[in-house]
């Protein structure tokens, strides 16, 4: 991966095959940056990575600005008990944990705002950001901690019925399925957690897995196997979701025999088939792998754009834990602080401000 020696020069990002993509700057047309706020560190995203970066950057007196994104608190807000975060021997609820992270970040002077960074211009410093497609912000450094979102199967009828029986959040939506039969798709820890959780409400929980063995951890598997309401359906994939306004069944295929059948007792379909990184706004700027995960320089959070750092699940498809995300968030804040100390701050080039005549700024 190319990291140029000139701290203010950038190169276009590449995806897994190494082909550069030209970034799309059209969203910036007509946006006037003349009065845009300037910040030393802008942190995008508010999972454990973003808030930890904020805690460290705030304590370094960088007064970080945090945009909380479309799902403030991130994936942990859709979980129940977090039992593996050190320091909480009795476990802690995911949403509560994220509220505590935020409190700690704000205590040291983090400026946390609602809003989603929808577009970026990393062509030169200071970087230009657009919040909710309209509000311009300048950043000397950027820490990306946008995380990942639940993946869907991509079936047309599945998309149509999201919120009407199709969901990727058992903890949010499980109680709507009291006494009903639901299906969970997936074979990892989250599939086990969700199916076990759903037995509190549902009469019956099918776990559909495309293979004949699980990749979930032993302890999570055992909990699910011991649960009488859970039935595993192996080598099986969903091919269609049935129903007009509500889910009224699913069509599945056994990928060994090729046999399809309709499970018409299923009124809820819960997806737990992994995640996709939320890195679309950075396409063309940052190097990513085939799946869109941002590539960072080994043993650091440096991206291919100097001054832009990436942390958490947006750059980690391997570990994806709250504690590892917090760890890389901390690294990103330290990397940003040191990089800024070495490379200094840059004034905006006023001639670049939107399409209007340039006015000199003091």
């Amino acid at each position: 991966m190319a990291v140029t020696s000139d701290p203010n020069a950038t190169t276009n990002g590449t995806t897994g095959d190494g082909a550069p993509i030209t970034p799309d700057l059209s969203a910036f047309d007509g946006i006037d940056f003349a009065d845009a706020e300037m910040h030393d560190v802008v942190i995008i995203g508010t999972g454990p990575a973003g808030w930890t970066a904020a805690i460290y950057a705030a304590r370094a007196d960088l007064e970080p600005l945090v945009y909380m994104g479309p799902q403030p608190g991130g994936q942990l807000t859709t979980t129940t008990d977090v039992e593996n975060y050190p320091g909480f021997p009795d476990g802690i609820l995911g949403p509560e944990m994220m509220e505590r992270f935020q409190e700690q970040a704000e205590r040291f002077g983090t400026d946390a705002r609602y809003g989603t960074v929808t577009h970026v211009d990393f062509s030169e410093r200071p970087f230009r950001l657009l919040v909710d497609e309209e509000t311009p912000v300048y950043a000397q450094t950027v820490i990306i901690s946008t995380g990942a979102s639940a993946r869907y199967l991509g079936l047309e009828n599945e998309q149509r019925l999201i919120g009407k029986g199709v969901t990727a959040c058992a903890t949010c939506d499980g109680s709507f399925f009291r006494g009903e039969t639901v299906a969970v798709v997936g074979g990892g820890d989250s599939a086990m957690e969700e199916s076990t959780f759903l037995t509190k409400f549902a009469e019956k929980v099918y776990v559909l897995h495309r293979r004949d063995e699980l990749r979930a951890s032993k302890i999570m598997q055992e909990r699910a196997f011991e649960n009488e309401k859970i039935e595993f359906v192996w080598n099986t994939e969903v091919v269609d979701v049935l129903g007009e306004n509500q889910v009224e069944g699913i069509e599945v295929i056994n990928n060994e025999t090729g046999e399809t059948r309709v499970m018409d007792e299923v009124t809820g379909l819960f997806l737990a088939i992994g995640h996709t990184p939320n890195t679309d706004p950075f396409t063309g700027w940052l190097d990513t792998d085939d799946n869109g995960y941002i590539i960072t320089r080994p043993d650091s959070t440096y991206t291919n754009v100097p001054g832009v750092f990436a942390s958490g699940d947006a750059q980690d498809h391997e570990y994806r834990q709250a504690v590892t995300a917090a760890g890389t968030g901390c690294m990103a804040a330290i990397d940003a602080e040191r990089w800024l100390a070495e490379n200094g701050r840059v004034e905006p080039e006023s001639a670049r401000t939107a399409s209007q005549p340039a006015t000199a700024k003091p």
Partner: protein
Amino acid sequence: MADNPNVVTLTDDNFEDEVLNADQPVLVDFWATWCGPCRQIAPIIEDLADDFEGRAKVGKLDVDNNPKIAQEYGVRSIPTLLFFKNGEVEEQLVGAMGKSALAKKLEALSGQPA
């Protein structure tokens, strides 16, 4: 909970009066106390209620205490946001959403810019 006086607490009992018979567009936030994403967007909902005071109504309906209305509108995910105008559902959004996107929809329904 809705401490903000501009956020109407909706129930199975007052839904018809407050939402269906309202003379303004109404944004209804279906939520529950145990729903993490719902808690996180609560401040956005309160902000919108303040910003649109007099032009649109913003209400919250706790799905645990008011299962009838939630069921009637087929709500099976929360947060779900329903936009009503003249007693009809104009739009349904599922999951957390940015404030500006919600504001734009309310603006369109209330027929005048903020």
